[in-house]
């Protein structure tokens, strides 16, 4: 994490420095339409949103962006990076929007613009099936819990840990998939991640994993992420409109059922996130 922040800081500082000499301005929506493709950045280790199944990139994001692409009349081109590299690359203009999705938080809203939510993101604990020592979220006090680095789930887990009598022994992983593997191998006692993700993993690996209910985090939502500047405003407006249309005509619910096994009741926009 230290090394990672330092690295991001270096790139960030370089980008800030460079931004002053950059004079590249254009309407991104027009550029995307002219090119006929919209580039979407993401990581492929966040099932069921983006993951690799038998070598193919699949998930809710792939299906949902195909629908968004249809609405905008463009093809979707995926750029896959490790999660901690996604935001620096978005700012560097390597792609037009980020799938992810990311938890909508106050801190992120200061810097980025979110689309309407596509799922709930409230976090809960995934444990090994049959583990009697964890029956409620508070039981993770003093235990090793895995979480992805540079994630909002990490921040929420830290906050929750502070309130416990003994702190949680937080283990940060480059991607959530690696934390699931360590949980299966018994190296950690649980993984803290958003409910849709761990519900999917538990369903995929019945008998290996179990979800600890209720979720412990504050109610939060997942959105796609774009840049706030004027160049990106028309594109983000168009994506917002497309997503609201997809939600209104029931396609969103169909996709949620396909990937989560249930549909969510999400607001049309999140103005004031819980944290």
């Amino acid at each position, binding site marked *: 994490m230290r090394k990672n922040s330092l*690295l991001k800081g*270096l*790139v960030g500082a*370089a*980008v800030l420095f*460079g*931004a002053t*000499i*950059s004079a*590249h301005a254009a309407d991104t929506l027009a550029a995307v339409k002219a090119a006929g493709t919209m580039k979407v950045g993401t990581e*492929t*280790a966040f*099932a069921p949103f983006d*993951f*690799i*199944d*038998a*070598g193919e990139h699949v998930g809710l994001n792939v299906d949902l962006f195909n629908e968004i692409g249809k609405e905008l009349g463009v093809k979707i081109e995926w*750029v*896959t*990076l*490790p999660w901690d*590299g996604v935001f*620096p*690359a978005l*700012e*560097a*203009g*390597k792609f037009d929007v980020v799938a992810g999705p990311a938890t909508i938080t106050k801190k992120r809203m200061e810097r980025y613009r979110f689309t309407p939510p596509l799922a709930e993101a409230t976090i809960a604990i995934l444990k090994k099936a049959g583990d009697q020592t964890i029956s409620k979220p508070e039981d993770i006090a003093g235990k090793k819990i895995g979480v992805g680095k540079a994630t909002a789930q990490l921040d929420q887990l830290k906050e929750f840990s502070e309130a416990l009598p003994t702190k949680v022994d937080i283990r940060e992983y480059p*991607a959530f*998939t*690696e934390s*699931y*593997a360590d949980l*299966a191998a018994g190296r950690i006692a649980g993984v803290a991640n958003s409910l849709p993700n761990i519900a999917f993993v538990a369903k995929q*690996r019945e008998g*290996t994993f179990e979800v600890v209910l209720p979720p412990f985090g504050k109610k939060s939502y997942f959105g796609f992420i774009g840049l706030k500047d004027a160049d990106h405003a028309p594109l983000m407006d168009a994506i917002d409109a497309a997503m609201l249309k997809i939600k209104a005509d029931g396609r969103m619910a169909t996709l949620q059922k396909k990937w989560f096994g249930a549909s969510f009741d999400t607001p049309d926009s999140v103005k004031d996130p819980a944290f």
Partner: protein
Amino acid sequence: MSVKLFELLLQASIYTVTISVVSILIGFAIAIFLSGMLLSGRGLFVRPAQIFISFFRGVPLLVQLLLIYNLLPVIGINVPSIVAAIIGLSLCTAAYQAENLRGGFASVPPGLVESAEMVGLTPRQIFRRVKVPIALRLTFPALVNEAILILKASSLVSVVGIVELTRMAQDLAGSTFLPLQLFASAGLIYLVINWLVALAGGLIENRLPGAPR
């Protein structure tokens, strides 16, 4: 572990091999140029080459890749992932290879060059018939070493969005929960590739001028 998974690893290793081979070749071309600058003896050429080499040898390849991928767009050069990966690996290996070549040329015995002058060879002939064969022979094992190092370092290019062998193994391990089998297979594939490189290197080395027979 299924055959299908192993096939996916092999497919991803095509990226590993292609990116590495292209980078080593481009890097070698740049290295020839750089070593020429270093050996010119003129500050005007030597200094820039030294600065280039100390930067690309001194900054971790991971950071170089992130800088090339995220920083070049800021000055208006938005390169795709594959280009960023090849630029990063090429420049890095060029710095090391340039030092190898410089060492090789510096090790050509002055006596041999003098003898060549004595028998009336022109400087151009001396370079082509005496210096290059000796330097090549001296630096070839280091070149093979460098090729193997770059093949292994190519696993870093996943940070700029290339799904090469290591990244594919990670992705598949994430979705299949078979980390042991996948990473062992990836290790095996790297081992075989590098063994082939070493084997080819040995064969070529024996055919270089001046090789013991």
